[in-house]
């Protein structure tokens, strides 16, 4: 591996270049194999290795939680005088070693060594249809998620919530990124989706003290779950008309305030309607939001949203954002465009809300307030406006960060905003903004010299 660094001239300097060159000839398929190897290694030897390294159990999120737990212990000792166990400090290097052995090494070795094989495979897949190729990649990705999440319940729920966050962030990016309006109503759409899908599932199939006894009971009831989700999404879509119609005449700050008002109306509606549980909300949702269901819905969501924003109909959003009068003069139906954007975004936010309700199996109006708004806005702006990849990156990184920093307790709400401020200063539109998501290019094989085919 050291050889690849020195053979060609001039040798680029810096760690980033070296890593880039090391993996230049590895296609996406290679990385998926690498991650699959990690997960299998962890399943096989994770417990024993953790014991050997003096860790009480497998580090849940790549060891980050373990590290921050040790740091938080130290902080608490300094500020609160709590008892300190010096042994926990020892966990920091051990967690890093664990990460190196279980994650870093298998990815590097497998991805690098199989690059010839995976390139040939990717080449062969490219000869078939793009759909088939994408499905193969997705199946591998799902296998990784399945094994990784299967090792620990906490992991599984973090994974599920992260996937839901991806869908939610992407749907908000349609309005805030692609159309350039600042919409604050997204938790409201989510609430409508969560409540309506719960109404469907709990109301029909579950004995509940708020919504009454089950109306139907048959063993295949879970097959109706997609219907419940779509119902929630459609209801959120109708709710979005309340914002879409004012948006014909109002833009910018004023529309932001209208959307904020919408959020408060929705929230107090659900707080005050006792038939929907009032402030206590609805609980006891059936456990239907399994990993495969969520994964499928999120993949379909990303696919549909990506289709939309890459079509001329979808790019009309950009035209409306950048210069509305020119859009009108170039035959673009701006009203239809705005309405489509709001309703489509709200539909997917409603779907995400429905999924969230069935992951947590409990909802109340307080979950869909300003805090949620801040969270999803942070994901959109951190990841990058006007970009599907950006939304995925933003949602995943903020979700994982906020889980990983949980041991820091109150300090977490200083660290994450600080990060956000830094991103806004150095990349004002987010990490990966204004970039198209080209599936064909992502999946294609890489030649050994690192050039794209």
């Amino acid at each position, binding site marked *: 591996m050291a050889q690849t660094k020195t053979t060609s001239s001039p040798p680029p300097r810096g760690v980033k270049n070296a890593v880039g060159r090391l993996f230049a000839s590895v296609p996406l398929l290679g990385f998926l194999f690498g991650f699959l190897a990690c997960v299998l290694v962890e399943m096989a030897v994770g417990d024993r290795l953790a014991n050997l390294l003096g860790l009480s159990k497998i580090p849940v999120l790549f060891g980050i939680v373990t590290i921050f737990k040790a740091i938080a212990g130290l902080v608490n000792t300094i500020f609160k005088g709590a008892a300190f166990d010096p042994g926990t400090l020892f966990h920091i290097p051990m967690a890093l070693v664990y990460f190196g052995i279980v994650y870093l090494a298998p990815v590097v070795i497998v991805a690098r060594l199989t690059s010839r094989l995976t390139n040939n495979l990717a080449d062969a897949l490219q000869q078939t249809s793009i759909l088939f190729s994408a499905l193969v990649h997705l199946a591998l990705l799902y296998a990784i998620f399945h094994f990784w999440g299967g090792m620990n319940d906490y992991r599984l729920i973090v994974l599920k919530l992260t996937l839901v966050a991806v869908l939610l962030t992407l749907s908000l990016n349609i309005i805030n990124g692609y159309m350039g309006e600042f919409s604050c109503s997204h938790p409201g759409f989510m609430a409508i989706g969560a409540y309506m899908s719960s109404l469907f599932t709990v109301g029909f199939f579950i004995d509940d003290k708020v919504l009454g006894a089950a109306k139907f009971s048959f063993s295949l009831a879970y097959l109706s779950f997609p219907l419940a989700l779509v119902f929630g999404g459609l209801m959120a879509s109708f709710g979005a008309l309340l914002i879409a119609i004012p948006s014909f005449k109002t833009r910018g700050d004023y529309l932001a305030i209208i959307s904020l008002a919408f959020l408060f109306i929705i929230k107090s509606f659900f707080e005050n309607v006792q038939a929907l549980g009032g402030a206590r909300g609805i609980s006891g949702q059936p456990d239907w939001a399994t990993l495969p269901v969520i994964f499928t819905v999120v993949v379909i969501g990303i696919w*549909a949203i990506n289709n939309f924003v890459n079509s001329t109909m979808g790019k009309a959003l950009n035209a409306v954002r950048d210069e509305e*009068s020119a859009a009108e003069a170039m035959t673009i139906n701006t009203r239809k465009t705005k309405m489509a954007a709001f309703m489509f975004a709200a539909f997917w936010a409603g779907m995400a809300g429905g999924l969230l309700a069935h992951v947590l199996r409990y909802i109340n109006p307080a979950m869909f307030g300003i805090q949620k708004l801040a969270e999803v806005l942070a994901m959109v702006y951190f990841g990058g406006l006007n970009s599907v990849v950006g939304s995925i990156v933003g949602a995943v990184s903020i979700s994982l960060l906020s889980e990983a920093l949980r041991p820091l307790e109150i300090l977490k709400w200083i660290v994450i905003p600080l990060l956000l401020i830094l991103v806004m200063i150095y990349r004002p539109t987010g990490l990966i903004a204004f970039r198209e998501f080209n599936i064909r290019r992502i999946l294609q094989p890489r030649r050994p010299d690192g050039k794209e085919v």
Partner: protein
Amino acid sequence: MTLLQVDHMTHFFSGLRAVHDFNLAIEPGEIRGLIGPNGAGKTTIFNLITGIYTPTEGKVFLNDENLLGLYPHKIASKGIGRTFQDLRLWRHMTVLEHVKMARYSQLTYGLWGAFLGTARRRREEAESENRAMELLSLLGVDHLADQLVVNLPYGAQRRVEMARALAIEPKILFLDEPTVGMTPEELVQIMAIIRKIHQKFGLAIFLIEHRLKFVMDLCEQIQCLVFGEVIAEGSPDDIQNNPQVIEAYLGKDAIEA
């Protein structure tokens, strides 16, 4: 048959009379000029015809079809293309995307096609791309197709805007001061381009211009607008020698001297 007809159009901006009793009849394939000093109401007339404002009084017809009260995008898709004096391009879009975007009203795949990526959508988008590339090469900017418009020099941006206006397949093209801020060489080029597209598509052109020489060279008929009123109308020669026009442009002293 008259292509574009405007009868007795008057417009007030909350008490201020911007246009008074404006009449216009443009035949298919004609190049018509509209001149006048700053603030005379020339761009207002464009905005009134294209539906951005609704005239206080008067009527507008395209091929005997009433345009009053229609949304601007409807009017545009009936066959009125336009450019803007201040180049209203979409800053995050490429040159090709601009021209494809203007073919919005010709797309029939609808929102479901957009969400689901149907075969019909792929076919229509490909066809639209071909047409867009043809227009770009006609205007000599096809090599810039993948560039963001904000990165282009001014003259190229003007051409992109013109290609965009042509992409809606107009019957009449409104050009709002197409030569503003141009060098003499660019001026000659843009004149040739206007002649070329006029010939190729058999378009009627309605032109607002400041540079008298440019209008005199291109147009068959010219109207001169001052304070919202047409003070003179006729061939370039008539306009050039009309004392009222000279007075409006150069001041009263110019005639007496």
